[in-house]
C-alpha cells in the first residue's frame, strides 16, 4: 500500500512550519512520529495535499520538569524517551505507568506523545493520562501561543480544536499540589492491540488525604471518558475500602462501552470498576508502606 501523492516539506523552524500550514489552508498536515498518520495515509483515510515533516526542527525532543514542578513534553519526544526517562519514573507515576503500554516497543521508538494526543483516537493512552492529570497542550500559530486543556482539546474521534495553522508544540502536566500518585492499568488482548479498556488515575496527595483527583478511561466511549464524578468523590477524602469502592462504581458508571470483538459492554464496564479499584488500592497500600 502507498499513500496518495502529496507535497513534502521539511522545515527547520516552527515558524516556517506554521507558514506552510497557513499556506495550506487546511490541506496541510503535520508529520511527527507518523505511527498513526502514515498508516492512515496508506489506507487513504487521510490524503493531505502537503505534509509538513517537523522531524528536522531541532529542540523539540525534550521532556523536563520546570522549577515549579510542571512536566513539559516537546512535540518530538518519543514514547520510548518517556518509557526510559528516569526523571518521569521518579516523579510522574501515571505517565510512567502508561509509557510501556503504548502500542509496541518498535512503534514507541518513533511515535510521539504530543502527536498521539493530537491524533484524538478514543483508544489513545496518552489522552486519558493527560485528562486525569489536568494537562494542557501548548499550540503555536501565526499570532503566538495559547494553552488548551486536554479536556477540551479533543472534540471527537480524530478531531481536535487546533486551527489549520496551529502546531501543538508541547504538552504540559501541571505541577502537583503535594505528592503526585497515580497508575495506568490497561487490558489488551496482545501487545499492540487497542485497549479493551484502560483506566488512568492521577492523584495529588498530602499524606493520606487526596487533594486533587483525576480519573479517565480509554477505549470505553466515542472519545476518552473523563470520569469526573468518580474523581471528585475522592477529593478531600482518604483512600479506604469505602471511598475506593464508591469511586470505582462511579468510574464504571461513566464508561460508555460498546460490545465488540474485544468484549461485551458489561464486561468492559466491569473491567473499569476493577481497574479503578485496583489502581486506587495500589496507591493506598504503597502510601501505608511509606508511612
Amino acid at each position, binding site marked *: 500500500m502507498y499513500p496518495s501523492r502529496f507535497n513534502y516539506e521539511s522545515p527547520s523552524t516552527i515558524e516556517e512550519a506554521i507558514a506552510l500550514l497557513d499556506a495550506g489552508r487546511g490541506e496541510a498536515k503535520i508529520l511527527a512520529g*507518523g505511527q498513526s498518520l502514515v498508516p492512515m495515509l496508506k489506507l487513504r483515510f487521510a490524503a493531505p495535499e502537503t505534509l509538513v515533516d517537523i522531524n528536522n526542527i531541532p529542540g523539540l525532543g525534550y521532556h523536563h520538569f520546570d522549577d515549579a514542578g510542571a512536566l513539559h513534553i516537546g512535540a518530538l519526544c518519543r514514547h520510548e524517551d518517556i518509557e526510559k526517562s528516569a526523571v518521569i519514573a521518579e516523579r510522574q507515576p501515571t505517565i510512567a505507568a502508561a509509557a510501556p503500554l503504548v502500542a509496541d516497543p518498535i512503534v514507541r521508538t518513533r511515535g510521539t506523545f504530543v502527536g498521539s494526543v493530537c491524533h484524538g483516537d478514543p483508544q489513545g493512552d496518552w489522552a486519558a493520562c493527560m485528562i486525569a492529570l489536568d494537562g494542557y497542550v501548548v499550540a503555536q500559530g501565526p499570532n503566538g501561543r495559547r494553552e488548551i486543556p486536554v479536556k477540551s482539546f479533543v472534540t471527537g474521534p480524530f478531531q481536535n480544536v487546533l486551527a489549520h495553522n496551529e502546531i501543538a508544540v508541547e504538552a504540559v502536566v501541571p505541577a502537583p499540589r503535594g505528592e503526585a500518585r497515580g497508575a495506568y492499568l490497561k487490558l489488551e488482548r496482545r501487545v499492540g492491540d487497542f485497549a479493551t479498556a484502560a483506566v488512568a488515575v492521577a492523584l495529588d496527595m498530602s499524606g493520606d488525604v487526596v487533594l486533587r483527583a483525576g480519573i479517565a478511561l480509554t477505549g470505553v466511549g466515542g472519545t476518552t471518558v473523563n470520569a469526573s464524578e468518580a474523581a471528585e468523590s475522592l477529593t478531600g477524602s482518604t483512600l479506604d475500602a469505602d471511598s475506593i469502592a464508591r469511586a470505582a462504581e462511579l468510574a464504571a458508571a461513566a464508561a460508555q462501552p460498546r460490545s465488540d470483538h474485544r468484549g461485551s459492554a458489561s464486561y468492559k464496564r466491569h473491567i473499569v470498576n476493577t481497574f479503578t479499584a485496583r489502581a486506587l488500592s495500589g496507591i493506598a497500600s504503597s502510601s501505608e508502606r511509606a508511612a
Partner: protein
Amino acid sequence: MTSLYEEVSVTPVDVPVRRVTITVNGERRAADVEPRLLLAHLLRQGFGLTGTHTGCDTTNCGACTVLFDGRPVKSCTMLAVQADGHDVQTVEGLASASELHPIQEGFKEEHGLQCGYCTPGMMMAAKALLEENPDPSEDEIRWALSGNLCRCTGYQNIVKAVLWAADKLRASAG
C-alpha cells in the same frame, strides 16, 4: 562492491522527486524518490535489499523492522524521504563476507525460524536489544520482540536464539 554513490530511480519520470542520500549498511546510497515512497519500498525495490520483508503493511507485524540511527523502526511506516541524511541498517548488514553475525548463528543453531518471513525483523529487533542490554533475561527478550509477530514458531526458539546470540556476543566481547 557497488560504488559509494550508486544512484537508483524508483519513480516515473514525470513526477516531482527529491534526492535523498542514506547510509545503508555503512554504504552511502543516493536515490531520487517520490515523497510518498515508503522506506521499505526504497530498500527493497530501489536498493534491491529484499531481506527487509513487508508483512502486514499496517504497522503491526514488524517483519519490515530496520535500524534507523540505531533504533528499530517499522520501515513500512516511514517515508523514504525521512531517511535523508540518516543511517539505516538492514538484515543484509548483519553478516560479514565470511561469517554470519552471532544473531544469525543463534537463529540457525536454535532453529529460531520456520518459514522465515518474520526473521529479518526479529533479528534487527534483537540487535537493537542486545546493543542496549547485552545480557537480557528471557522476559526482557520477549518484551523487546513483542512488536514482531511470528505465526510459525510460538516464539520459544526465537527467544532461545537471542539468548544464544547474547552468550556468544558476551563471550567474544569479554
